[in-house]
C-alpha cells in the first residue's frame, strides 16, 4: 500500500475486511482492538468514505440467496471509438449492475464491453441481453453471455495483517 494510505487506515482495513464487529458499539470495539479512541476510528472511517477509500458500509448479499439465481456476464465486441457512448447507455439500464470497458485478448477473446445482468432466471437474463443487443444495433459485432454456474470463492479483499 502506498504512502497515501497511512498505517491507521491499513490497520482499519485489516481489522474490518472480514466484517464489522456485530456488537452494539462496533467502532468502540475496533478502537479497543487498535489502541486508539472511538472518535479517531469514526473520524477515520468517515474520511475514508468521503475520499472513496471505502465505497460503502453495509450488507453484501449473496445474490443467489436473495433470488438472483441467474447472473449473466454479457460481453460485447463494439468499435473502440464508440465504446464510451455505448457503455454509458448500457450502464444506465436498471438491470445492469456493472459495465466496464476492458481490453480484448485476441484471438481468444474479442470482447471489449462487459455488462453484468442479474435476473431470477436464465430466460429473464437472456431477454435483457436481447434488449442490450437491440440497443447496440450495428455497433455489436460479436457477443456472448457467460452464466456463473458455481461460486468457487467469495471472501473479498484480504490484505496481510
Amino acid at each position, binding site marked *: 500500500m502506498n504512502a497515501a494510505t497511512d498505517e491507521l487506515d491499513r490497520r482499519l482495513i485489516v481489522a474490518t475486511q472480514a466484517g464489522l464487529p456485530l456488537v452494539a458499539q462496533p467502532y468502540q470495539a475496533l478502537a479497543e482492538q487498535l489502541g486508539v479512541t472511538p472518535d479517531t476510528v469514526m473520524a477515520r472511517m468517515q474520511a475514508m468514505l468521503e475520499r472513496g477509500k471505502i465505497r460503502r458500509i453495509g450488507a453484501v448479499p449473496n445474490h443467489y440467496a436473495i433470488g438472483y439465481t441467474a447472473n449473466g456476464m454479457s460481453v460485447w465486441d463494439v468499435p473502440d471509438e464508440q465504446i464510451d457512448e455505448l457503455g454509458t447507455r448500457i450502464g444506465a439500464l436498471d438491470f445492469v449492475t456493472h459495465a466496464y470497458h476492458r481490453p480484448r485478448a485476441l484471438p481468444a477473446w474479442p470482447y471489449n464491453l462487459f455488462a453484468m445482468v442479474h435476473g431470477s432466471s436464465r430466460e429473464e437474463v437472456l431477454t435483457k441481453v436481447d434488449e442490450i443487443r437491440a440497443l447496440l444495433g450495428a455497433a455489436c459485432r460479436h457477443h456472448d453471455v457467460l452464466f456463473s454456474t458455481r*461460486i468457487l470463492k467469495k471472501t473479498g479483499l484480504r490484505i496481510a495483517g
Partner: protein
Amino acid sequence: MGNTPEIDAVDRRIIDALQGDFPICDRPYAAAADRLGIGEDELLSRLQSMLERKVLTRFGPMFQIERMGGAFVLAAMAVPEADWERVNDTVNAFPEVAHNYRRESDLNTPLNMWFVLATETKDGIPATVAKIEAATGLPVYPFPKLKEYFVEMKLSVRDAA
C-alpha cells in the same frame, strides 16, 4: 445453485435497506434498527443469522483498494475439465483471489474460470498472475478495467426468493 436459505420479510427489509449508508456513530446498529422499526438486538441477531446462513457474504465496509494504491483486476483461465479440482484448489489458495466463479457461455467459450485479484499495490497484479500461471501451468488472462460505466449495487430482494 444449491438450496436457497429461508428469508422472511424482516430479513428482506434489512437487506434492501442496509446495502449502504450504515451509520458511523456510537450505536450504529441501534440507529439502523430504528430506521427499520426493529430493535438493536433483533438487527444484530438477524445479521448474525444471515451471515451464518450465507444469505449475506459480509457485513461491513467495502474498500476501494484502487484509491489506496492497490488494484482489483478481473482475470480468467481456460481450465480443462479433467484438471478442474486441482486448478480450483490451487487458484483459491491465493489470498489475492477475492472471488472466483465458474462460468459457462452460450458459445462455449473456453474461459470457464473467472476470478478477481485484489492486491495492495498495482505491481501485485502481474506478480500474482505470474505466480498463478507457475502454480497451475495454465495461462491467466487479465482483463483490467479501462473504464467503469456504472457501479452501484441496486439489487432488491426478489419476490421469488
